[in-house]
């Protein structure tokens, strides 16, 4: 018995690697779901979006790039599901050029989800009526500040090449005054730019979606109320997906929740290795004594 503990204390690293690979891969192929419980920052964001009045809209700023896609893309999808389910008007823009493809993918995925179930034209999600994809504009301060005055002037054409001032949805969205909340999803400091420039100048409410590593930087802003609500990392995305499914009854592929099962399994496996290692260590130490 003692001998086997000792063996465990000196486990080959490849055994650890292989089991880690296994616990991450299996949930990707056969997802199982752990119900995440929404933390206050996510709940706040959800509630704020849930209570957007008819005359205002949600703006999503897709500021992440392909390298942080696993963590952040599910957030954009969950937000769109929420908004489309309640027929809230949505505007989407990109601060990073590499975000264009991702934003387009999120919009296509979610509108397809709704349109495949839609019975009538009124049920469908249509570009220009239910949402507008403004595309990309640089340098960053141009859209961030310019949208406070006139959005159609910052983005004369939308991503699909339509003139924005002719779109039905744009008749109600003039500038930040018509924006109930702007959610910036980024693996970088872009949400801070929105706080520093758009919020201080125009008072627009800011929500954030950030990677787990970046999240710590946002807590002070959350406490001071400058950030209305926030999703952090895959966990934040999973919590939002849970709220959308639970409260709105909207179902769809939950990528963050599914990835969260890999995440959870990996965490548990690492914690088990630590425990095994320590037990082995103590058994060996006692024997030496």
């Amino acid at each position, binding site marked *: 018995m003692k001998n086997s503990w000792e063996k465990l204390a000196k486990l080959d*690293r490849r055994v650890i690697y292989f089991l880690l690979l296994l616990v991450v891969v299996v949930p990707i192929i056969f997802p199982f779901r752990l119900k995440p419980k929404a933390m206050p920052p996510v709940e706040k964001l959800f509630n704020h979006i849930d209570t957007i009045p008819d005359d205002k809209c949600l703006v999503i700023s897709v500021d992440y790039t392909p390298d942080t896609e696993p963590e952040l893309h599910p957030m954009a999808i969950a937000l769109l599901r929420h908004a489309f389910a309640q027929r809230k008007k949505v505007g989407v823009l990109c601060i990073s050029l590499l975000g264009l493809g991702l934003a387009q993918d999120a919009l296509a995925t979610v509108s397809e989800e709704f349109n495949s179930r839609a019975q009538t034209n009124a049920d469908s999600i249509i570009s220009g009526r239910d949402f507008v994809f403004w595309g990309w504009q640089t340098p960053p301060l141009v859209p961030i500040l310019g949208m*406070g*005055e006139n959005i159609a002037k910052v983005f004369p054409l939308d991503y699909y090449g339509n003139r924005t001032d002719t779109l039905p949805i744009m008749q109600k969205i003039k*500038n*930040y*005054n018509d924006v109930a909340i702007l959610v910036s999803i980024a693996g970088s400091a872009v949400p801070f730019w929105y706080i520093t420039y758009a919020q201080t*100048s*125009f*008072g*627009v409410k800011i929500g954030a979606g950030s990677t787990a590593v970046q999240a710590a930087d946002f807590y002070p802003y959350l406490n001071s109320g400058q950030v209305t609500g926030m999703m952090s990392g895959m966990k934040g995305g999973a919590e939002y997906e849970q709220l959308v499914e639970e409260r709105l009854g909207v179902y769809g592929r939950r990528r963050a929740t599914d990835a969260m099962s890999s995440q959870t399994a990996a965490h548990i496996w690492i914690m088990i290795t630590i425990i095994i290692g320590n037990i082995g260590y103590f058994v060996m130490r006692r024997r030496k004594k």
Partner: protein
Amino acid sequence: MQITKQKINIKYLVVFMLLLNCCLVYGLEPPTKVVAKDAPNDAGGNIDIFWQLSVSDPTLEGYHILRRSEPEPEPVAVGFIGRGRNSFTDEGTTDGVKYSYQVIAVQESEEAASEWSNLVSSKPQWFHTGRINVIVFTFIFTFLIVFYINRAKRGANLFVRKIAGLLAVDEAIGRATEMGKPILYVPGLTGISDVATIAAMNILGEVAKKVATCDSQLIVPNTDPIVFTVAQEVVKEAYTQAGRPDAYKSDSVYFVTDSQFAYAAAVDGIMTRERPATNFFMGYFYAEALILAETGASTGAVQIAGTDSVMQLPFFIVACDYTLMGEELYAASAYLSREPLLLGGLIGQDWGKVVIVAVLILTSVIGLLTNLQVLKLF
């Protein structure tokens, strides 16, 4: 007669009531006390405008800001700002031209304009008054450091306590010699002007001297071409100082690539193929820190790390045998070389810490006991 008088009275009353009505329904009050000032501490081209909020502020959409100047007497709109805000910066002024501003409260279709402000022109400043505190701190610390370096020059005996990780350096080099295996020295991933790299170069010099006397082999892969050049000079010089210029091989210090993960892949390859007995990781590191340290640990090498990258320290602490944390990296070069000038700087730094702690405690005590706005000092 009586009747006419009454009629007139009623007339007045009606007019008065109507006016009152107008005020209640359309009572849009303009913002007041509009003041314009040159924006401080900038390169010119900016004017700050301040005003007192309109009484009707809660019902407003916001404020339009107009400006006029002598060359352009027609008012032009320079910006719009949401309600509840009482300042705006006009970022498009021409230095030297006098401008006046008007702030207009906007509510749906109604507008109420303030009076025009004072005339003001923007100009650039030569000195950033908001940064006096930084200058004061810089002077204090510079004084302390230079003072102690001078004392060291004059031969004062300066005490520096032992640093655990450094005692291991000799031992680790000795071990590599005994085993007849090379020593790997990774000088971090930042450029030559980074302090961590400078410290890494100093430590490299000391390590190379010991390696030269022990007749071991040194491998120094680099990720910055300039650091590579300097590292090569430093190692060459160390071999000369150790009296073994013949043992120096220029090929032991080389450049790999400036791409972070390609570098990590290459160093991983070196560690698993050349099997160095000792690995040094000194300098500034990013996410590759743990890739390097864990691969090194798997080859059974003794590992000594030192970095001022606080983000990566936990990983070095976990995966290496000895880790110089933060400032210890800088102290190490002073400690290893025993160069009085470097030691003097270290003592100066310690006094700098005393100053910081004193400032923290003093201002906190003042801040707690009085209502003085101590934070405004910083």
